[in-house]
């Protein structure tokens, strides 16, 4: 298995009860796109604020009291711990309620859960980050993590795409990565508008044109399921082995800790065994229900 390093999964339980959330305060809200917002938050409890740690790729169960819980990955990097961030696309009940919150509002947080990206495995490699839409949220945590320890890694390519220029998230990050001489950053949109001077085309096509070398490289792919489905074959064509392709899977996760049952793919529980998997693992799943 490519991912041999399972994160050590630090635990931060409130009152010894895994279901009891910590109270966190929203400090800042960034309007990423018309339907996506980033929330900066910090724990109310000072000790937890100091001690909390997590790994890129891990997620939490976020809640609004009276509305309910939903899982989101932590989109900030563990290397920048003065506050935490998560990004939310407005798609349902809980996400709409989150979008109605203002700075100062209190939310609940349980976590971090899941395995996180295999940093040890990425060390010393050429990295190709491929993301679509809000899929950049888990990946930007990893990208900043890697950039903050830049000398541990080799060449870095980032390919990011969205439906339209207005759908590009984290444009402030895109700008700084574009300026970073140690990063090869490519942004693309499915369809540009009048003012768009950048690249047009779907992420898998752009990947094929750029053709990053598979030699001593790892590709990390996050985005909508269709994008991932079309990206893997392109990577394979470029010579990436299934073990060199890493992604995160999305499921409706309620408990986050392997109990409520709904996130399974056969005997794999995405909340506990994932959400980060290599394609080598995914290929061996009993079920194709992902």
């Amino acid at each position, binding site marked *: 298995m490519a991912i041999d390093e399972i994160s050590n999964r630090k635990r931060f339980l409130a009152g010894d009860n895994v279901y*009891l959330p910590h109270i966190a305060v929203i400090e800042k809200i960034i309007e990423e796109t018309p339907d996506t917002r980033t929330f900066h938050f910090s724990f109310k409890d000072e000790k937890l604020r100091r001690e909390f740690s997590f790994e890129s790729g891990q997620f939490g169960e976020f809640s609004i009291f009276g509305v309910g819980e939903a899982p989101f990955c932590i989109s900030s990097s563990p290397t920048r711990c003065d506050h935490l961030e998560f990004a939310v696309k407005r798609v349902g009940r809980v996400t709409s309620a989150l979008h109605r919150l203002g700075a100062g509002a209190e939310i609940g947080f349980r976590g971090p859960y899941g395995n996180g990206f295999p940093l040890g495995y990425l060390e010393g490699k050429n990295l190709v980050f491929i993301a679509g839409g809000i899929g950049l949220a888990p990946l930007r945590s990893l990208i900043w993590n890697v950039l903050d320890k830049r000398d541990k890694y080799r060449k870095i390519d980032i390919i990011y795409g969205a439906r339209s220029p207005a759908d590009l998230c984290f444009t402030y990050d895109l700008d700084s990565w574009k300026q970073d001489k140690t990063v090869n950053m490519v942004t693309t949109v499915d369809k540009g508008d009048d003012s768009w001077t950048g690249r047009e085309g779907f992420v898998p096509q752009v990947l094929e044109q750029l053709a990053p070398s598979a030699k001593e490289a790892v590709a990390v792919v996050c985005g909508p399921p269709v994008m991932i489905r079309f990206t893997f074959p392109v990577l394979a064509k470029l010579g990436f082995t299934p073990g060199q392709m890493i992604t995160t899977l999305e499921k409706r996760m309620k408990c986050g800790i392997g109990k409520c049952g709904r996130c399974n793919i*056969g005997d794999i529980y995405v909340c506990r065994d994932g959400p980060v998997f290599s394609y080598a693992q995914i290929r061996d799943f009993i079920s194709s229900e992902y």
Partner: protein
Amino acid sequence: MTVKKIAKKELARLLDEWSRQFSVLVPSVETGVAQMTGWQGEDTSFVDWYRNTILPPKDAILPVMEEMFSFSKNEDGYRLEMSPPDSGRQLIFGIRPCDARALAMLDVVFKQDYEDTYYMRRRLNTVLVGIGCTNPYDSCFCTSLSSGPSDTAGLDLMLTDIGDEFVIEAVTEAGRELLDKSQGMRPATADDEARARESRDIANQRVTQNVDVKKMPDRLLAAFDNEEYWRKIAAKCISCGICTLLCPTCYCFDINDEVSDNRGARYRSLDSCAFCIYTKMPVENPREEKWQRVRNRVCHKYEFYPRLFDTIACTGCGRCIRLCPVNWDITRTLNSIPGQ
């Protein structure tokens, strides 16, 4: 371990005695649906009519719905308060061997990795006193699953009906202690134990339904992608979820908030993999189709759970067969897996 006996007419007194230490639950049809409810005194007639409850006893440990914590808001923000357990020590009297075994299967899930506070606080406060079955249903198939009407796995005490008396056997240390402290127990004679054995043998023979579970995980694995088979199997299921809600080994749950009269609380309630929304995400649903959900239910019990925990997560209690409104029958599925 210790073996004793008690006369059936002493039973009410014994339950009264245990009620001083425990909330004692016994089988009852008070609500119209056979289930475990609080011992009211006197009436032990369930011993004669009771074959098994409709609602599984898991309800006493993993309730259909439970409050996890409440929340309130003041100038300083939110305050959360863990909801107190609704019962102290409890004793489930008359639980059937299959249902005790089922709890042992749930224990594994709720204990592993992160311990489930709510499940564990009830479970650790629960004593299980089983009565071996004498009159199993036609739909019971526990003997196919290396269990049977006299299986003691998961129980603290096991009672065997020998006519006017029960032979009582301590299975765990906790069971032995309880037995030693209880009044009105007499030592079981060799003759009593022989009668108990005979009673068990007869009961075992009465379980006639059979499923072939040999090489089960692998055989199911081979049929996993046989969509045609699963579509055929699932055709008449109406996705009502009764089989899962009544199954003693099903544990899927949902977490939701409710607010009323200035008081809010987070609840856990049972959920079902038979429901389409169970896995539904805003854009995708990995088990949108009924056949995928039926497959998940069967395979969770007979393939996924065994892969993770080395036991088939079905006790053969037969509830899902007896109580399905369209007569969907898991034994027929298991006995018709292609390629056997």
